[in-house]
């Protein structure tokens, strides 16, 4: 039976983990490679890096991070943030990323998704959808949630599936950072409309939220950052809890 995945996400800026917390056994809390290794040793099903480096001159730092991490972690590694072109995707894959997530570029030009999935295979193309509720529908935001495009999120999800995306990483902008739980309605609507896996993101504050994302939101995988990053729960605790709640997980 296919297991639901738990994916811890790390925000990386200029090659360093944002607000790194000193866990036991961690020599350098700001080192993404060390943090990723702790997650993978703890049973993370995949690792996700979100590069939030603002300036262009420091953008190369992520390549170095990915290269080092892929030599230490032998679970799938997804990298997103600032991916603009097929060439950017190629560079990240060559450094050892297994999947690349595309956000703004996919909205601006769906050809990037079509071309890259044809070139590298759908399995490594994740489209990241940042959506915000607007009365009865959800609209897509780009540029890290700063720009409203007015595009309907559900329609966009279907379009991305048709363009060749292998997975959708759906983040609720309303819930992101609030710790009140995923936007279940958004997740389940998108999940029922597409036949590719949906990864739920944005708003996790406790382990029941992960359960809800899978059971009610029909997500194939659940992504969380702060609950793991600030040590509230370990990946192992999260998996044991999901197992207790009858969700199939890899333990």
């Amino acid at each position, binding site marked *: *039976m*296919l*297991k*639901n*995945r738990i994916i811890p996400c790390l925000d990386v800026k200029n090659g360093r983990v944002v607000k790194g917390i000193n866990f036991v056994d961690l020599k350098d809390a700001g080192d993404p490679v060390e943090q990723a290794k702790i997650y*993978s040793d703890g049973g993370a*099903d995949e690792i996700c890096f979100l590069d939030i480096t603002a300036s262009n001159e420091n953008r190369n730092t992520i390549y170095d991070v990915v290269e080092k991490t*892929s*030599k230490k972690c*032998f*679970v*799938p590694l997804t990298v997103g943030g600032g991916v603009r072109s097929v060439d950017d995707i190629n560079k990240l*894959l*060559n*450094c*050892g*990323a*297994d999947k690349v997530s595309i956000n703004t570029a996919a909205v601006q030009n769906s050809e990037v998704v079509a071309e890259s999935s044809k*070139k*590298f*295979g*759908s*399995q*490594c193309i994740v489209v990241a959808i940042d959506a915000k509720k607007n009365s009865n529908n959800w609209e897509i935001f780009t540029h890290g949630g700063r720009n409203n495009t007015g595009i309907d999120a559900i329609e966009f999800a279907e379009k991305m599936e048709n363009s060749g995306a*292998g*997975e959708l990483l759906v983040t609720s902008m309303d819930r992101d950072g609030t710790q009140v739980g995923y936007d279940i309605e958004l997740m389940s609507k998108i999940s029922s409309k597409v*036949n*590719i*896996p949906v990864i739920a993101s944005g708003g996790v504050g406790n382990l029941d939220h992960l359960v809800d994302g899978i059971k009610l939101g029909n997500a*194939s*995988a659940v992504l969380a950052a702060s609950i793991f990053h600030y040590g509230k729960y370990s990946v192992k605790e999260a998996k044991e809890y999901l197992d207790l709640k009858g969700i199939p997980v*890899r333990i």
Partner: protein
Amino acid sequence: MNVTIVDYNSGNISSVINSFKEVVKEKVNIEVTSNLNKIKSSDKVVLPGQGSFKSCIDALSGISGLVDTLNEFAINDKKPLLGICVGLQMFADIGYEETETKGLGWISGKVSKIDNQNNKYKLPHIGWNEINILKDSKIFKDIDNNSHMYFVHSYEFIPDDKSVISATTDYSSNIVCSVEKENIFGTQFHPEKSDKIGLQIIENFINL
């Protein structure tokens, strides 16, 4: 010992390279190349594969003499070869992804799309699934039955001769996820992305 990972522009193979480099001990040299002479003189060959069946076959055929060299290595010389993902699928006679494409024909059978049972099952089949070990394959030494492996694929290999199947996984039906025919080994899952248990499989192959 020389182990060659065949680099034929079939997409991203850095994870395969990293995983083999992680497990090899001294005296094992890992080459990443499509150089025919280097492949011929290798002790073992790894055939990775990402993207579609057609794109991988096209890429293999695009390098002059490569298919013949692999045939010589695996069929004539009967030296150990491990196919991963589409690398395994290409063992078949024929594949139906994109368009009907002739495979290497090493293990007779076909590669078809997984039956998603009217959208009941999402495709690609992505994530960790348990393997049911059906026969004592050499690459499963010290691997427990029902171990988790990482999968990502939409097509499955259906061999004519079921005795080559060494493991299946349950997704929509019992999908063939590992084969062994004499010196030819293949995994539909990605040992290079399957954590410590996957590295064990790689080590088993190297130690053959």
